[in-house]
């Protein structure tokens, strides 16, 4: 059996991979989001509340968190239809901050003090199962009709529309699914840490989801998987460096992005 330490690293890495995928999905349709942490927060708080206050089985709690985050994704998708590029990044960032501040002021779930007493339901097996399902689903979608429409939208939105792609539909689907994945990640996270507070889902959570995916390369979903897996476990590898660790970590990311600006797994250079 794996030691607790290794298990914990694997679980957090798995959750990070899910977050990277939740960023990748809208990004594959050209929609860059800096607010995935907000969806994760919604999933985590909803799932935790369902477990703690309603006593529902873990799977239901997880699904409930995913559902709420998916609906939030849909809701964010609508205003996002009007915005592009950095403006979209800024709006989604503002959304993430709104969510964080909302939970900071929600006494039902502990407000700034955080929300505890969540049952310890998440195991490594759960994370693996969710991850495998998500990756399997995304890779199938990626090769099918919708996958091509995502890519078309990312490459040239006007041409995609003119060739018959309903960009509204595709963008909403992308944001909703991205929200769903982040919500699932949040539910898994809450039932592993057993205590959550709004700061865990702030800007840095959102930016790291983006960083993982871009670091791995946005060409395929495997880029997001690889990027998150590498960057999530790298701090463990660098443990021996003690207080130089974060500095070296940052320098390694910087160096890699300079050598491979399109990401680790990208075919482009």
């Amino acid at each position: 059996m794996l030691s607790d330490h290794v298990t914990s690293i694997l679980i957090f890495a798995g959750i990070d991979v899910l977050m990277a995928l939740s960023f990748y999905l809208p990004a594959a349709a050209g929609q860059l989001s800096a607010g995935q942490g907000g969806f994760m927060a919604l999933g985590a708080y909803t799932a935790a509340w369902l477990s703690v206050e309603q006593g529902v089985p873990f799977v239901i709690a997880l699904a409930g968190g995913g559902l709420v985050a998916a609906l939030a994704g849909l809701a964010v998708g609508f205003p996002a239809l009007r915005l592009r590029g950095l403006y979209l990044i800024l709006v989604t960032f503002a959304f993430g901050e709104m969510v964080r501040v909302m939970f900071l002021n929600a006494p039902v779930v502990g407000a700034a003090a955080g929300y505890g007493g969540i049952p310890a339901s998440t195991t490594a097996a759960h994370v693996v199962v969710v991850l495998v399902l998500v990756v399997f689903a995304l890779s199938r979608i990626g090769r099918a009709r919708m996958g091509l429409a995502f890519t078309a939208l990312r490459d040239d939105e006007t041409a995609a529309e003119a060739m018959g792609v309903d960009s509204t539909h595709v963008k909403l689907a992308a944001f909703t699914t991205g929200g769903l994945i982040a919500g699932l990640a949040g539910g898994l996270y809450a039932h592993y840490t057993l205590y959550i507070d709004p700061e865990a889902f702030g800007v840095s959570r959102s930016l790291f989801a983006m960083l993982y995916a871009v670091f791995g390369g946005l060409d395929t979903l495997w880029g997001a998987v690889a990027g998150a897996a590498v960057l999530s476990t790298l701090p463990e590898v660098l443990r021996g460096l003690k207080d130089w660790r974060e500095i070296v970590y940052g320098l390694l990311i910087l160096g890699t992005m300079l050598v491979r600006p399109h990401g680790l797994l990208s075919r482009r250079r």
Partner: protein
Amino acid sequence: MLAQQLVNGLQLGGAYALVAVGYTLIFGVLNLLHLAHGEVFMVGAYVGLALALAGAPFWAALLGGMAGAAVLGLVIERVAFRPVRDRGSHVTPLMTTIAVSLVLQHAVVKLYGAEPVAFPQVFAVVPVSLGPVTVTSLQLVILGTSLALMALLDLVLRRTWLGRAIRATAENPTVASLLGVNVSLAIVAVFVLASALAGAAGVLLAANFTAVTPFFGVKVGLKALAVMLVGGLGNVPGAMVGGVLVGVVEALSVGYLASSYRDAFAFGVMILILLVRPTGLFGARLAAV
């Protein structure tokens, strides 16, 4: 009471504006978000702190903070922007600057520790009565310095050849270079100017809050981002007015809203502005300075 809050807001807003002006300059010229700009601000504050601890007068700490930040801005342009300017996707510079901000935060942790460091009282803070309101001499210095620096920046952008080069580059780098503008130089100048202003804001706010931490830049950086949005991306006067506006609104809401709601309010306003008027309250573009 209201007038008092107004003064507090003005002084806070002036410092926000200094950081936001840098964001918006860089955005206007390069169409990029500089996510380590908050850390440039923070490093400026620490340089000022180091000088003040060494017994330097306040003006020297301020100039030192500006110089330190300017040098840092130059280095960041070299290592994190220039190499990916024409390569990679348009999120690549976002990632390189996140990496830089990580490195800077933890480098400062290494040097000064993660705990807040008290900023020495650099001069005797005396209350000054101005009619119905009382301000401290420090508040006056902060407000005065912010206004002076922004006026100076405005002058540089409007009246000098360097300013013209920067504005031309913001308008269209290709055309600018065809017309003989040294685009690379303009970009470097933008980083130096933006960083120096952030450094000044760092020292001013550190003196105001009386302490600094290595993560001091994160919150202020986010706030400056909001200010840039309110003022219009790439719009320098917009960022100046927007900074003051956000500062005043923040100070005024102290009396009426719980502090944790204040941020929600600010971000709500930010989303609304982006949706209703994506170019900000005062329109986008730097070229039209």
